[in-house]
């Protein structure tokens, strides 16, 4: 696989992977991919993970309400992007290993250990996998942590991470708006805004924004439905029907 920019990853891989129908001939065939926008940020006291909910096969949206943030342990979750199958299997294996590790260790696994397990699978099977993941969690040693595990199996700890095809649209935004030491509320609002901006421009991302907040107290899952997200440039307030607009009499009807 060529070094793919995140934007072309979903499209290119869908056609080249199987050697079968390209997304142009058979837009509804092809491997399940999560075009995706995934984000993880550290705040003062924990982490917030966020993702969109679109899973596509070619041009068809196979699942418009997927859950791309999977639990690895009580205190560590992972955001998944790339091939749906690959990332599901990786997180299943890591969950299995961490379960046994926790029993042996006698205490919750650290975020670092969980991330490294993800890395091992990603690195050792790099020629066969298309999985870009963001691992986030909280442990008593290092507090909230975010680890990026992109294609290839590199592992990098970061104060915030973005991934998936939608992340292309977020580099500039994060460079501009990211700040250290946000409060929990600021961080949750921020990631919802950021993912929804990516959804606005990335065809492979869409649906709802799911967030998972992890801190010393525990884990909180949130759901932000598509119709409750902020509106951006050239987007309009949704209506029930044209008829309502006309009835209100306030439209600038273009009458010839």
């Amino acid at each position: 696989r060529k070094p793919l920019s995140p934007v072309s990853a979903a499209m290119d891989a869908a056609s080249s992977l199987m050697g079968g129908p390209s997304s142009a001939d058979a837009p509804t065939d092809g491997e399940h991919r999560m075009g995706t926008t995934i984000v993880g940020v550290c705040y003062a006291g924990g982490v917030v993970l966020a993702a969109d909910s679109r899973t596509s096969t070619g041009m068809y949206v196979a699942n418009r309400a997927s859950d791309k943030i999977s639990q690895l342990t009580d205190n560590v979750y992972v955001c998944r992007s790339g091939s749906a199958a690959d990332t599901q299997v990786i997180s299943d294996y890591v969950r299995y290993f961490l379960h046994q590790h926790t029993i042996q260790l006698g205490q919750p696994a650290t975020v670092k250990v969980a991330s490294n397990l993800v890395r091992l699978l990603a690195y050792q099977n790099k020629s066969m996998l298309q999985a870009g993941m963001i691992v986030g969690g909280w442990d008593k040693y290092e507090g909230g942590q975010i680890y990026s595990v992109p294609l290839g199996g590199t592992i990098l700890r970061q104060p915030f991470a973005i991934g998936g095809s939608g992340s292309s649209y977020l580099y500039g935004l994060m460079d501009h708006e990211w700040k250290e030491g946000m409060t929990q509320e600021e961080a949750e609002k921020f990631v919802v805004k950021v993912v929804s901006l990516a959804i606005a421009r990335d065809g492979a991302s869409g649906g709802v924004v799911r967030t998972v907040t992890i801190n010393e107290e525990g884990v909180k899952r949130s759901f932000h439905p598509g119709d409750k997200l902020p509106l951006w440039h050239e987007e309009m307030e949704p209506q029930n029907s044209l008829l309502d607009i006309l009835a209100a009499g306030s439209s600038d009807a273009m009458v010839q």
Partner: protein
Amino acid sequence: YNLERRENPYVTGNSVIAMKYKDGVIMACDTGASYGSTLRYKSVERIKEVGKHSLIGGSGEFSDFQEILRYLDELTLNDHMWDDGNSLGPKEIHAYLTRVMYNRRNKFDPLWNSLVLGGVKKGPKGDEKYLGMVNMIGTHFEENHIATGFGNHMAIPILRGEWREDMTFEEAVKLIEKCLLVLLYRDRSSINKFQIAKITTEGSTIYPPYALKTNWGFAAFENPSKGAVGTW
């Protein structure tokens, strides 16, 4: 053998440059790792200490570089456990890496890196400075100055012209910065955040990241279309 196997790099670091100087070896690179054409990670350390006597600089696929650092951890740990007063020097580390890289290449499963290995160790002739490189196909050699990636094209000519035996630290840093600047101007994947490291008999120092001033104040830059409309 997997005769079809041909890995491709995903997250890549670019040039590493290094040279011998009076007190030891100096090595430098930027702190960026790209993902295709995206400058994705901008605070990455691509020069690390190895044992007591060496520095390693890595360009190419970053996950492979991280794995190589783990191999080196194992190697130096085992070396330390001998507890015999001896420790692996840069020449030995370089030889080990060469074997690793060449054997992977023979299996059509390369570690997609160019590695620079520099250090100082006491030898029969006193303190011996060492600098060498090895790449993904197993090509390896020693030299007074080394560069990987774009550095081969942009930095080596400068180093060949201006490197001298017994440069002071200050002179060496100035020359390295000249090369780093050229790479910043002309290598698309470079970023303006650098790390310089040195290794001497006293030990190694990896300096904190910093940025360099760039010069755009040429009259010809201000309005290039003036005399030739449509020029680029």
